[in-house]
C-alpha cells in the first residue's frame, strides 16, 4: 500500500461488494490495537463493528451505497481487539471495480458532547410531550366538566320542575278563605323558595265553631316543607275530630319528638298558634307555642297580644299544653302571622297598619299589609329569604 495511505492521519479500509475486508491501513490497525492486518484478511467488515453497528450497516450503509454509491458522515462504533468501543465517522464511496473505499475518523470528544446534546434534546422533547399530554388531559377534563355541567343543569331543571309541582301540591293543601255573616277569614301565603316551612288551616268544625292553626317549621326549603305537610295532615285529622286545642298541640309535639328521636341531624322544631273560636259564646280559646304574638284589635281600636303560652313544638318532651280563653265583641279583628312577616317591618308596623285600616273592609286591610310587604322586599332584600304568611280574621 501507498506509504502515504498506510500512515495517513485517518483510518483507511477497502471492502468487496460483499463486505469482505480487502485492505486496511496501519493507522486504523493501531487504533484497534491489532498487530497486523492478517487477522482481517478475508473476514467481513462486521468483525470491526459493535453489534448495534453491524445492524445499522445492514439497515443503512448497504442500501445507501447500493442506491447512492456514497455515504458521508455515517456514525458507527468500532470494537478494538479488547472490545472497547471507538466512536467514528465514516465516509465511503463505491467504485467501478466493485470495491468500497472507506475513510474513518475517531470522534471521541465530539461524540461525548453530542451525547450530552442529544440527552438535553431528549429531555426537552420528553418535557414537551409531557406538556402536550397534560394539555390533552386538561382538555379532556374540561370536556368532562362541561359534560358534568350539562348534566347538572339538566338535573337542576328537573329539580326546579319538581319543586314547582311540589309547590302547587303544597298550595292545594291550604284551606280556602271563609266569608259568611258571622266570620271572615283571609290569608296570604308566600314561600321564600319554591317550598315553604309555613302552613295554616282554618275550618268550620261545627256550625258554631271555627278552628284556625298557623305553623312555622324552622328553616325553609324541601326538608321543612316535608315536615309541614306531614304536620298538616295530622292537624287536619285532629281538628276534624273536634279535639281540644291542648290535645291537638300535644299530639303534634309528640309527633315531632317521635319523628326525630333517633336522628338528631334531621331535628326540626316548629312554632304554632292555634285558635278555637265559638261564635255562639263569643269566646276564643288559644294556645301559642313559641309563635310571634297574634294581634287582637277591638272594635274601638284597642289592641292586645295573644303571646306565647308554651315553648315551640318539638323542643322539650312531655310539656303540658295549656290554653287561654277570652271573650270578644263583634267587629273584633285578629292578625296571625309568621316571623317572616314581622321581621320585614320595624317594630309595631303591623299594629299601625291594622289600626290605620280599622274602618276599611278586611280585604283592603289585607291588601295594605300585602303591598307593604312586597314593597319592603325590594328595599330590604335580606328579608326576602324567609317564608311569609299571615291570616286576618274579622268576627
Amino acid at each position: 500500500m501507498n506509504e502515504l495511505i498506510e500512515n495517513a492521519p485517518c483510518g483507511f479500509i477497502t471492502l468487496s461488494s460483499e463486505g469482505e475486508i480487502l485492505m486496511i491501513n496501519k493507522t486504523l490497525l493501531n487504533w484497534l490495537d491489532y498487530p497486523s492486518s492478517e487477522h482481517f484478511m478475508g473476514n467481513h467488515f462486521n468483525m470491526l463493528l459493535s453489534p448495534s453497528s453491524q445492524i445499522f450497516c445492514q439497515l443503512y450503509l448497504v442500501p445507501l451505497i447500493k442506491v447512492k454509491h456514497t455515504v458521508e458522515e455515517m456514525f458507527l462504533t468500532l470494537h478494538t481487539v479488547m472490545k472497547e468501543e471507538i466512536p467514528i465517522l465514516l465516509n465511503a464511496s463505491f467504485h467501478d471495480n466493485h470495491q468500497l473505499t472507506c475513510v474513518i475518523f475517531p470522534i471521541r470528544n465530539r461524540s461525548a458532547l453530542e451525547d450530552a446534546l442529544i440527552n438535553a434534546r431528549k429531555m426537552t422533547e420528553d418535557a414537551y410531550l409531557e406538556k402536550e399530554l397534560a394539555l390533552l388531559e386538561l382538555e379532556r377534563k374540561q370536556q368532562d366538566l362541561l359534560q358534568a355541567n350539562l348534566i347538572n343543569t339538566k338535573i337542576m331543571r328537573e329539580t326546579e320542575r319538581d319543586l314547582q309541582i311540589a309547590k302547587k301540591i303544597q298550595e292545594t293543601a291550604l284551606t280556602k278563605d271563609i266569608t259568611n255573616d258571622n266570620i271572615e277569614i283571609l290569608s296570604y301565603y308566600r314561600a321564600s323558595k319554591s317550598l315553604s316551612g309555613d302552613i295554616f288551616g282554618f275550618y268550620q268544625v261545627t256550625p258554631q265553631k271555627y278552628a284556625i292553626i298557623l305553623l312555622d317549621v324552622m328553616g325553609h326549603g324541601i326538608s321543612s316543607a316535608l315536615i309541614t305537610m306531614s304536620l298538616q295532615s295530622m292537624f287536619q285529622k285532629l281538628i276534624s275530630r273536634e279535639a281540644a286545642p291542648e290535645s291537638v298541640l300535644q299530639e303534634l309535639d309528640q309527633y315531632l319528638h317521635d319523628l326525630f328521636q333517633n336522628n338528631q341531624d334531621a331535628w326540626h322544631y316548629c312554632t304554632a298558634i292555634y285558635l278555637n273560636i265559638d261564635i255562639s259564646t263569643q269566646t276564643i280559646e288559644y294556645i301559642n307555642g313559641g309563635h310571634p304574638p297574634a294581634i287582637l284589635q277591638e272594635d274601638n281600636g284597642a289592641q292586645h297580644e295573644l303571646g306565647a303560652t308554651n315553648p315551640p313544638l318539638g323542643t322539650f318532651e312531655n310539656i303540658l299544653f295549656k290554653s287561654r280563653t277570652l271573650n270578644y265583641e263583634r267587629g273584633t279583628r285578629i292578625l296571625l302571622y309568621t316571623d317572616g312577616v314581622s321581621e320585614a317591618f320595624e317594630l309595631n308596623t303591623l299594629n299601625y297598619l291594622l289600626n290605620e285600616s280599622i274602618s276599611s273592609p278586611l280585604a283592603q286591610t289585607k291588601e295594605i299589609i300585602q303591598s307593604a310587604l312586597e314593597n319592603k322586599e325590594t328595599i330590604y332584600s335580606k328579608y326576602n329569604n324567609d317564608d311569609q304568611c299571615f291570616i286576618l280574621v274579622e268576627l
Partner: protein
Amino acid sequence: MIQNTFKRNNVHIRGNGKKPLIFAAGFGCDQTVWNDVFPAFEEDYQVILFDYVGFGNSDITAFDLIKYGELSGYVQDLLDICETLDLKEAVFVGHSVSSMIGLLASLSKPEYFSQLIMIAPSPSYINDPPEYYGGFEMKDLLSLMDLMEKNYIGWANAFSITLLNNTANADVAKDLEDRFCSTDPLFANTFAKACFFTDNRKDITKATLPSLILQCSEDVIAPRVVGEYLHANMPNSTIAYMNAIGHCPHMSDPEETIFLIKNYLLEHSMPLIGEGVGNLNE
C-alpha cells in the same frame, strides 16, 4: 379515503398483469429498494409499491406517534391500501420487518392475500434462552437506537418537536431532497421500537397462507437459526437458502431474489382464469 391512502403511503401501481403483487420495504428505507426487482414482475403482475408513513415520499403530516408506535399501525396502513385497491389474493413480498407486517395483515384479512414472500424475516430479534435465539441482547438494540440518533440521514427536521408541534406544515417535507433512507428520530425511532421490540412468535403459528422464507447467508439481523425456527413454526411455509450475503438480497443480489420468488410462485400458483376467455366455436 382513496386519495388519502394513496397520498399518505405514496402508492404507485406498475405493470400489465392482473394478479396484484405488493412490495413492502423493510425498516428504514422506501420503495426505491425494489428498483432492481420489481421490473421483472411488471409483465405478469399488477405491481404495487408504497412507503410507510415517515419514509420516502409518504405524507409525514399523517404521522401519529401513538398509531405508529405499534406494528398494528403499519399493518392498518397496508390493509387500507388493500381495501382502497379492492385487492383479492395478492402476492405479498415483504423485506425484513415487513414480512411480519404482511403476516399480521393476512391474519386479519386473509382474503386480500394468496401467498406471502418473506425476505430475511424474523419473528423476534431478542434472545430468549434457552428456547429461542433471535440474534441480539436488549442492550444491543438499545444502543442501535442511540446509533440512529447520532446519524443524520434523511431527517425531516433537526428537532422532532418542531414537527410534532406542526405536522400540518407540509413544507418540512418539501425541504428534503431525499428521504430514501431515514434515521429521523421521530419516524425512524418510533418505527424501530415497534419493529425491534415486538415479539411475533405467537402470531406465526396462526399462519394459514402459503409462505416462502428467503434465508440469506451470513445475515446478522436474521441469522439462519431464526429462518429455521420460522419454517418449523409457521404452517404452510417453505424455506429457500440464498447465496446472497447480508440482510438485503433484493439489493445485493436481485437476480437470485427474482429467480427464487418466480420459482416459488410458479410452483404454488393457481392458474388464473383470464377475462373474456370464451368458447372459440361460438
